[in-house]
């Protein structure tokens, strides 16, 4: 029972990170119908930037732990958002009317570029985050849960809830949903679709960069190739939930995190990475548009 609850909290923590990254994929896909392969690398860029800012500014020493981390998070998310906007302008906008696979290849090129840029700047070896967080754990329902695990889940939930409210309740959010349904009709209604796309490339990468920082703080080390593996898992999560669907990405991320945690603990550690894809295939056989996806099949 002890193990069960430990894996449950572990799975929720990993799952919320997947969900945060998945949101970036699903938002971009919703508006542009493009798999932004570079998103995973924006995530690892966030982790590395967090490391650099953490070691060079030592904000937590000057501002206190909580405020320091908050400022750090805002800086990382802001910087990654800038990278995201530049990426969209340079690599994706010129391809908006091209065959869809060309944009996919441009995205793969961007991913390879960012990944290797990280390797050249930081080196190929794993980088270790400084130990600034208390290693405390709190007793919750009779078992010890690391504080960081709870923080990760809470931060992710707050960000996702914020995004959900923004997309559902504000004018800009409505414009975003409209552009996702039909770009042409949306621009006829006076919505600046380019602005919406830019906004998507601010929010998605910012969340991804934030997730990168969380991973760095939670696991304590970052590698330049982790963008691909986390990115693939997160994209799988987005598809599981029904791509283009924001609550779907959250559900898919959490589900995937739980499946991995329980699969690794109870079935086989060696096959851990296969479970995520196995579940994806099983669910798509039953529900071809994902768990919460409602969009009807489109012509390819």
């Amino acid at each position, binding site marked *: 029972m002890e193990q069960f609850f430990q894996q449950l909290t572990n799975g929720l923590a990993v799952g919320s990170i997947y969900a945060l990254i998945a949101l970036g994929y699903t938002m971009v896909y919703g508006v542009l119908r493009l798999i932004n392969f570079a998103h995973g690398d924006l995530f690892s860029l966030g982790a590395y930037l967090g490391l650099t800012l953490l070691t060079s500014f030592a904000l937590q020493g000057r501002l206190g732990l909580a405020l320091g981390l908050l400022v750090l998070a805002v800086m990382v998310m802001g910087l990654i958002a800038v990278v995201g906007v530049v990426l969209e302008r340079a690599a994706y906008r010129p391809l908006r009317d091209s065959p869809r696979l060309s944009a996919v*290849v441009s995205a*793969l*090129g*961007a991913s*390879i570029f960012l990944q*290797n840029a990280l390797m050249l700047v930081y080196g190929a070896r794993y980088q270790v985050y400084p130990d600034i967080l208390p290693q405390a754990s709190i007793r919750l329902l009779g078992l010890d849960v690391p504080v960081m695990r709870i923080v990760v889940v809470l931060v992710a939930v707050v960000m996702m809830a914020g995004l959900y409210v923004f997309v559902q309740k504000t004018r800009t959010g409505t414009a975003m949903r409209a552009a996702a349904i039909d770009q042409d009709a949306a621009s006829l209604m006076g919505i600046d679709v380019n602005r919406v796309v830019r906004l998507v490339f601010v929010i998605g990468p910012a969340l991804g960069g934030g997730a990168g920082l969380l991973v760095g703080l939670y696991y304590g080390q970052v590698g330049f190739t982790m963008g691909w593996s986390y990115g*693939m898992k997160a994209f799988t999560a987005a598809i599981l939930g029904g791509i283009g669907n924001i609550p779907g990405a959250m559900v898919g991320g959490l589900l995937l995190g739980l499946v991995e945690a329980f699969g690794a603990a109870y079935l086989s550690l060696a096959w851990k990475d296969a479970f995520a*894809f196995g579940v994806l295939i099983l669910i*798509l056989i039953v529900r071809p548009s994902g768990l919460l996806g409602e969009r009807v099949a489109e012509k*390819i």
Partner: protein
Amino acid sequence: MPNRTMTRGLGIAYAIAAAAVAAAPLALNAYWIDVLNSVGLYVLLALSLNLILGDAGLFNMGHAAFYAVGAYTSAILNTRLEIPILWTLPASALVAALFAALVARPVVHLRGDYLLVVTIGLGEIVRIALVNDVFGLTGGANGLFGISRPTIFGHRLTSRKPQEFLYLIWAFVAVTVFLFHRLEQSRFGRALNYLREDPIAAEGSGVNTARYRLLAFALGAAWAGMTGTLYAAKMTIISPESFGSWESVVIFLMVILGGAGSIPGVMLGAALVVILPELFRGFASARLLVFGLVMMVMMVFRPQGLLPYRLLRFKESDLRRAEDAP
């Protein structure tokens, strides 16, 4: 009607390329001969993926899985049963095709991007299965070694003479190019193009889309499987890391960069993707950075690929003859 499969210009280009490859051992050192060997293998892989991705329009980013199945089938047959490696070609084609038909069966109806992620997943599952020594046959993370070298008419090919493999691999390329050009114009090829452009209209005109999609997968996988046999014969050691998701991505890139659906385009794409990083060796570790940048720039300026696919055009006389045919 031998001259219908390709235009004269293309025929001349192929003749020049064939002469260049045949003469390569005179001009190049062993290192570059080996680069040409890998170009040949990747041309085969890219052409086989082109059937699925270019002709049928199915986003398959797990092609390395079929390559792996072929390579492992040959390696297992060769090391366990001591069947000469080249005799395992039909077996690896068959096993890879059956495997593809089996795994693609439940997923071919998926929308493009969904299929793309599912195939990445399938590729990963196959790699993980190989690492975990599934059925106790695949040798785990170390892979299989001691695959015997191929013998042709009593002549044993060795790694000391890479030009011998050059001729073996490129002969296979030549046969493949010829067959695939024929296939492109066959009823099968035209049906695949039709269902790529508009699956609903294709279904409405009596093309059984599910069946043709599966056939495209099976045929592409069979060719990738045979390429796996050639790879195993050349390397004599195979291990799961040669068949990872990066490999699938690279093959995918070759097809799109060259021009999906276009046989010469895909061959050019494969050649460039192999040779360019070799030329960038001066940049050392930055060569993949440059490669990524080149990909972005190329897609922005030439989104349809280097030598894009052109619709087949038939002469009126051809059509009349086709109508008269029984």
